[in-house]
């Protein structure tokens, strides 16, 4: 099988370096990084394979779009939305469905746009070349270029922002939430400490954005005020999402450490990171119990905590047994963590559906 691709090696200070990374090459080829040296340093060197487009397998539109916006991770966004809707419906505080609809759709667009921008940042910084990919990377597969993705991300972000404007007009208090979220996003984008190598500040921002940021944002959008439940659920959700991030970083522990990337997992090292993850998830289960004790019924508190704890056992076992920062056990832990997380969401969903049903009198 012959290939018409060729190679080119460029250094960071070469004007063509960014041109290749952004994919601004001849129209009929894709520049795919195949070998990198000193990633993230001033003397970074990348060898690109200039591959003719006709040699690249093209995905269907749905696969392409769902991969670039990371559709599978939308549950992280949709569940807090559902929870806040269910809670306020049960409490009879749901006063502005129109604003909430705008807020929800705007968030979906902005989230997709940010996911793409994150992928682009990883590609330009070299983060996606350092670690062994655990999911499809559209740019590295040659499906598209960073430049094209950037255009798509700006489209999604602009549509998302435009859709958010009516929310601010309908619910004035939402401005405070949007202002805080915007500051956090800008901090995440521009703070030097959140560079390619330094990821710890990014973890804190993610915890706030995906947790309290989302729950309080939706709470204000539907016409209610932020209360203790909104805040505590936000903290719980942020901690659970951050757990998935830690698990992901744990699966890249070796390669990230070699590249000098600093996050909680690389700071702890393999042995302590295992314990940390176990303790973190145990804290999430305790948080779940505390949250339900405060805001749920006794029956649901004990029943759901028991299911979650039981379902988490394989994860704890796998964490205690893993003995290599490379190898298939890492993938097994990722998979187990994701399944456990999904189970938690499923229980939460059923429980809240029950509360809605009770309110509507379906359970009588």
């Amino acid at each position, binding site marked *: 099988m012959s*290939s018409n691709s060729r*190679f080119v090696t460029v250094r960071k200070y070469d004007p063509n370096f960014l041109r290749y990374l952004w994919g601004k090459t001849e129209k009929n080829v894709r520049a795919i990084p195949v*070998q990198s040296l000193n990633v993230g340093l001033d003397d970074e060197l990348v060898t690109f394979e200039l591959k003719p487009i006709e040699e690249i397998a093209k995905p269907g539109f749905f696969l392409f779009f769902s991969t670039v916006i990371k559709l599978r991770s939308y549950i992280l966004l949709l569940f807090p939305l559902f929870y806040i809707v269910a809670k306020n419906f049960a409490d009879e505080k749901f006063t502005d469905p129109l604003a909430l609809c705008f807020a929800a759709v705007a968030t979906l667009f902005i989230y997709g746009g940010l996911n793409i921008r994150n992928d682009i940042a990883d590609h330009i910084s070299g983060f996606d070349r350092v670690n062994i990919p655990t999911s499809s990377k559209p740019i590295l597969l040659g499906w598209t270029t960073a430049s094209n993705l950037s255009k798509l991300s700006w489209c999604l972000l602009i549509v998302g922002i435009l859709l958010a404007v009516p929310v601010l007009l309908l619910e004035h208090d939402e401005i405070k939430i949007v202002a805080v979220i915007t500051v956090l996003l800008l901090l995440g984008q521009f703070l030097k400490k959140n560079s390619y190598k330094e990821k710890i500040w990014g973890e804190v921002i993610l915890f706030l954005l995906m947790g309290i940021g989302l729950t309080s944002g939706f709470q204000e959008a539907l016409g209610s005020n932020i209360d203790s439940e909104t805040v505590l659920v936000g903290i719980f959700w942020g901690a659970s999402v951050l757990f998935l991030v830690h698990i992901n970083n744990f699966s890249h522990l070796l390669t990230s450490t070699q590249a000098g990337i600093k996050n909680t997992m690389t700071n702890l090292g393999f042995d302590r990171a295992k314990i940390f993850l176990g303790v973190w998830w145990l804290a999430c289960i305790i948080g779940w119990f505390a949250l339900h004790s405060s805001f749920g019924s006794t029956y649901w508190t004990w029943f759901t905590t028991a299911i979650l704890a039981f379902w988490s056992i394989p994860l704890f076992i796998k964490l205690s047994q893993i003995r290599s920062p*490379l*190898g298939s056990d890492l*993938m097994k832990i990722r998979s187990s963590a994701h399944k456990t997380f999904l189970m938690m969401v499923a229980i939460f969903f059923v429980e809240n559906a029950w509360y809605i049903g009770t309110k509507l009198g379906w359970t009588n």
Partner: protein
Amino acid sequence: MAFKIYSEKDFPAYLPKLNQLYDELFSGGKGFRSKLVGMVANPLGIDAKTQTLLNQTIEFIHNASLLHDDLVDRSHLRRGKKAAWVKYTPEYAVLAGDYLLARVMMNLSSYGNIKLVQYTSEIISDLLEGEWLQDSVVGDFFVSLEQLDRIHNLKTASLFKWCLRAPFMAIERYDENLHHVLEQMGTILGQLFQRGDDLLDFDIRNDEGKALLGDLKSGYLNSFGAYISKNMTRPQIDQMIKSNNLEELVSCFGADPALAKKAFATKVSEFDVMNEKLIQLYFHHLLQLEQILSPSEKEIIKNLKPLTEILYWRRMPSS
């Protein structure tokens, strides 16, 4: 041909069994790594004494790693003979390996090139990291090729990189561009060598008659094993692990022996195609190297050109 790159004078004769152990260890080797050093060092006009030092350094490190490797892997044979830890006790094997590494540092530091000493220490450290990681994936039959590549880059490629870069360091040529190109070439050579070697385990181009399925039987899934098992079902992998011979392994690919054989051959071809891409990448770097070297040094290109044939395809180049 017996290969011996050390002098008995280097090691105290009053230590029981030490020289005998080294005699047996060094005599079976082909000395490929020191030949690779020569391929670079000769065109650079490096004097015989320095070349001997470089050759000794790389062979001492390599053989120290073999002494430790065999013990870690519990391999009973090395180069067709009893492994040192079996014949002379594990304690002596560890000490003999340590002694070689200590000797490397002693000889190199007396040469007086601190950058070379530092670089050599780095590759010894990489080698040990690779060994440590490899041991941690023994028994893991679901490890991916990409993960194994990371291990091989530390364990195998580090020595190839040293062979290419150390002669330039010895003559105090520290040009960043040059060393970056050599680093990348060494990485590819190490990977190709390892993959070619792993194929021998499956009787592919196994002209040297290496024992079959040795890695698999000792619980280690090598690069070709990881490649062929990538899309296998759990029962297929279980069957592969239990294979006592190649026929049993090939039967993992189907009940019909002819079809199974064909499917296995297809996997080998696909693996070769994948590695052809690496070879193309090597030649790309070779062209870059040619542009950096002075006319008198161009012989290095000629010397390095056939290496992919030797290391991956396991054949001597026709011209």
